[in-house]
């Protein structure tokens, strides 16, 4: 259940960033790549169980899923990557370089003053 530590990291990093400001967060826009080993549902559940702090108590966690894209060094082309074991659809070379889909980012937050 690594989603618990990830949810906790999200809250800790927001607390560190906004601890001296008189505001509360109403929305957190999170980007999660499809090639990470994170389940958005679990992340949501863990976030809900951890949000006692007044900074994030009323925040909605919005998770945007980012599709995977791989780069094949043989073909010099980018292709959709469904999973880490996806091979190049053109030349079958394994181990495409991940160019998108590994994200775990707080893209933005919506805040209001209190």
């Amino acid at each position, binding site marked *: 259940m*690594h989603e618990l*530590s990830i949810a906790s990291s999200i809250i800790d990093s927001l607390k560190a960033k906004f601890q001296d400001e008189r505001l509360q967060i109403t929305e957190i826009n999170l980007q999660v790549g499809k090639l990470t080993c994170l389940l958005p549902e679990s992340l949501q559940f863990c976030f809900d169980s951890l949000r006692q702090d007044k900074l994030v108590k009323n925040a909605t966690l919005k998770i945007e899923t980012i599709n995977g894209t791989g780069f094949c060094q043989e073909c010099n082309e980018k292709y959709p990557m469904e999973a880490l074991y996806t091979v190049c659809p053109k030349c079958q070379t*394994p*181990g495409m370089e991940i160019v998108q889909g590994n994200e775990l980012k707080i*893209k933005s937050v919506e805040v*209001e003053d*209190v």
Partner: protein
Amino acid sequence: MCDTCGCNTPDNHSHNEHDKRLLELHEDVMSSNEVYAQQNREYFNKQKIFTVNLLSSPGSGKTTLLEKTIRLLKNSVSVAVIEGDQQTELDADRIRSAGANALQINTGAGCHLDAHQISHAIKEIELDSNSLLMIENVGNLVCPSMFNLGEHFKVVILSVTEGDDKPLKYPHMFHAADIVVFNKTDLLPYVDFDIEKSQSYAKQINPKVITFELSAKTGEGMTDWIDWLKLNLTNK
């Protein structure tokens, strides 16, 4: 409770949608772990401590591999072990009996070690310069793959009593791996584990991965593993 909107916060907050504002952050959630991992790595490099992070499912033989490795190396190099388990000091006791300095981290409910825990552990445990540090992560093929500890190599141990399709079932771990050790090869005659197939699955995810086949119990194949460690210890 707020008198205006009925929410559970004090009533001195804004009720005007226009007062809400969007702040762009673009912050990597793993960055705090990465900061500690980088500091750990700098410390290891400065002190010339070659560090490996051992990862596997429970029961793959990590601790037995550690014991045998310590016995084969302790006369030529100082070895220390950081043991990660949810509970008990049992593994650290086994490591100390084998002749290495050991520190146990109990993660409680935690399913992995993180770089912050390691930054405390390396202050607590006495590490010699020009030594080998082996970190035995919590037995789990999913969560620890996300957390760099500052190690030089991630070593995934897969025993032949598990399925040979584990690399495809747990791709994140095998994608993160630098080394895959196939352990318990003495049991190959009794199980349906196809090492070549399993290696090809691992290389499908991670073509650069280096593999070893050994039995920590009988010692078969241990020489290649020990030589690899010695080579890296010399290069540090």
